[in-house]
């Protein structure tokens, strides 16, 4: 088949055969990858500006540079990763529990809200150069002397829409998990809750140590569902905090629009930082780490077709991570001298160090599960999973090193933090894991559509892996030489590192383009449009006999 024919019709993809559940999942996946592309282009523009500040479109303008830096993480974290993770989980929960998704309508509401919200935040930065950065350190977001008030209102409304979409996702997930239908028809809410929090795993371990029979042989919820349940608790708390901060900023901005001048110093900047970082850290240390651990377990069991190694320990570790993730935010405030020393020591250093344990455990369990099943075929899902393990294997120890009162004094707010830690964790750890999930789910979501080219998939894998690790490494080295993050260097400082980091950024963008090309040539433009048309088959389950694809075929 010719290139043009693939471009229009794909390989063997038939959007008409998709169920409602498959369609809502794919819609969010499509939006997620478009937003990922936007984030990576924005990132590359900043990288290039750090090599030569005068190159368009930034052209040496600090306000343009920082407005890009403000929306870049909003587009990346919410527009892309949130959407992808939410899409995968709204498909996986019905698939794993063999129950229908609570509401397809609500799932549509989620992706539309997050998409519109992200677009609004982007517009606020693009048109009005609203640039308080995503950390919104008080009183910067309400600084109407520096930023347009209207721009601020549009930005905050955008973020609020994202959070409302997030709350809708949470409702949909919990309503599905707690629905007492199908295999859970005879379970009580208490049994589902105990399993959701991982308490049954803990009780099984205790009983084993005491020589007693296990608390339960067949836990009510499978392990990946437990991880999704647990991570979603943090997603909820985090949404409340970000919404709360948004309401505060909005109140000040609206007061300004109405002609009133409210004193920004009525809000204590350090207290606000604590509140905001408590919430924001739940994204990084709660949501990401727990969702990722759960996804590793799921992928390892699907790839090997075997049970997870040390499943009870994994369940109990998820409970431990619950407590840990709520108590670690002070590692972001080690450079704040007003922060009580005890909080720096206990929350910032000691409890944070536990993350080495919980994440190290997840890495170990996943590796041993794979090892026990060898020889395995090096499929794309396995390759990306291993890439994800390398990402966190690099980024988590980097985090533990910097969460230290001695090291943080010279690492805080440098390129080390945002490169060696954040971008390696996100681009290599998180995205590689998510790509693995995409390859695992692809046949289920697209009714066995053939991928256009494995060569393109391979090129994507290597460019993304090398570009991701490389960019993190060069940023990290520049950071150790004193290069700050969140600073627009315009006089050729740290030039060699910046050139190499920019080359890596171009590799990342190229990788994304190749991935996109492969998907478009597999699905076709017709198929892409078809994903967004209403589904004929309203099935909101997957994997329950008869298969939706079988039903669709029978209908035809």
């Amino acid at each position, binding site marked *: 088949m010719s290139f043009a024919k693939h471009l229009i019709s794909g390989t063997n993809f038939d959007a008409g055969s998709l169920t409602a559940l498959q369609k809502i999942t794919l819609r969010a996946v499509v939006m997620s990858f478009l937003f990922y592309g936007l984030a990576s282009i924005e990132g590359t523009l900043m990288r290039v500006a750090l090599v030569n500040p005068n190159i368009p479109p930034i052209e040496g303008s600090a306000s343009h540079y920082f407005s890009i830096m403000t929306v870049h993480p909003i587009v990346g974290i919410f527009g892309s990763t949130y959407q992808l993770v939410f899409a995968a989980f709204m498909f996986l929960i019905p698939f794993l529990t063999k129950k229908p998704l609570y509401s397809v309508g609500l799932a549509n509401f989620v992706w539309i809200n997050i998409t519109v919200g992200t677009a609004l935040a982007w517009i606020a930065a693009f048109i009005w150069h609203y640039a308080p950065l995503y950390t919104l350190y008080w009183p910067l977001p309400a600084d109407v002397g520096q930023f347009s008030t209207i721009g601020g209102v549009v930005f905050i409304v955008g973020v609020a829409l994202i959070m409302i979409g997030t709350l809708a996702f949470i409702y949909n997930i919990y309503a599905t998990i707690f629905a007492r239908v199908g295999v859970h028809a005879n379970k009580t809410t208490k049994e589902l809750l105990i399993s959701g929090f991982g308490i049954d795993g803990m009780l099984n371990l205790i009983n084993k140590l005491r020589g007693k029979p296990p608390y339960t042989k067949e836990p009510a919820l499978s392990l990946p569902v437990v991880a999704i349940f647990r991570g979603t608790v943090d997603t909820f708390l985090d949404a409340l905090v970000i919404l709360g901060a948004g309401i505060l900023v909005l109140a000040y901005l609206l007061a300004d629009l109405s002609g009133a001048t409210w004193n920004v110093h009525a809000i204590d900047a350090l207290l606000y930082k604590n509140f905001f970082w408590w919430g924001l850290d739940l994204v990084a240390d709660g949501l990401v780490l727990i969702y990722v651990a759960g996804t590793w377990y799921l992928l390892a069991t699907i790839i090997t077709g075997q049970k997870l190694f040390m499943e009870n320990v994994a369940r109990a570790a998820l409970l431990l991570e619950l407590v840990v993730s709520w108590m670690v935010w002070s590692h972001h405030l080690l450079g704040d001298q007003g922060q009580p020393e005890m909080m720096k020591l206990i929350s910032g250093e000691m409890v944070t*160090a536990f993350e080495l344990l919980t994440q190290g455990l997840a890495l170990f369990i996943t590796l041993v599960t794979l*090892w026990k099943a060898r020889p395995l075929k*090096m499929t794309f899902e396995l390759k990306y999973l291993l890439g994800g393990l390398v990402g966190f294997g690099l980024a988590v120890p980097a985090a533990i090193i910097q969460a230290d009162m001695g090291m943080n004094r010279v690492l805080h707010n440098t390129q080390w933090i945002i490169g060696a830690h954040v971008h390696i964790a996100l681009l290599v750890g998180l995205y590689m894991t998510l790509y693995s999930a995409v390859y695992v789910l692809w046949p289920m979501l697209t009714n066995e559509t053939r991928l256009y080219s494995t060569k393109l998939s391979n090129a994507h894998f290597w460019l993304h892996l090398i570009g991701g690790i490389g960019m993190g490494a060069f940023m*990290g080295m520049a950071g150790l030489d004193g290069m700050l993050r969140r600073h627009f260097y315009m006089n050729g400082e740290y030039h060699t590192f910046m050139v190499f980091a920019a080359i890596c950024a171009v590799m990342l963008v190229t990788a994304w383009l190749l991935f996109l090309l492969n998907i478009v040539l597999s699905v076709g433009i017709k198929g892409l449009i078809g994903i967004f048309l209403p589904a004929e088959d309203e099935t909101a389950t997957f994997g329950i006999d008869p298969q939706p694809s079988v039903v669709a075929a029978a209908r035809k």
Partner: protein
Amino acid sequence: MTFATSVELLKFHWVAYSIYALIIISVVAWFAYNLTRPNKAKSIVRIPFYGYIGFLVAGGVGHHIFTYNSIPWVSEDIMRHELKPDRTFDIEIADHKFKLPGQMKVNVGERVYFNAKSHDLVYGFGLFRQDGSMVSQMQVNPGTRNDLMWTFNECGEFDVMSTEYSGPGGNDMKVKKALVVTGCDDQKKGA
């Protein structure tokens, strides 16, 4: 082992972390290779589960014990309200500008107390060598105490820069050669 300056610490960190990074990448690469081999590879080492957990705990806790004992500014920071400084400098920040007490002059080995106050936004206070590397820093929040105690074990001229974003207007917040440390014999000379 004691690190007298941040340069020594960061060099050590560079080497140690690079070695670690190469090891973890190689281990996963080795693992990936052996996962696919038809004849089952023997593990080079058998890692007992509890041994591994012990290793993680020891790593997480041991790292802080190591830095507490080898980095002089950790205990100095924790005890800074009990220690008597040799010199105190008050720094004010407002409207994206530093107000410094003239050029700050310090003798090597002196314990200096920086007391910074922001009148509007969140800023940072960072000291940098002429080659751009960082000596030390803290965040400067409006409304709360921002104090940093630092013993200078190196000589040279140091720039002051804001280490926190405070809006595009804060991008130029840099005072060249704002602090000078003298009194080193040639061997000890820093930046």
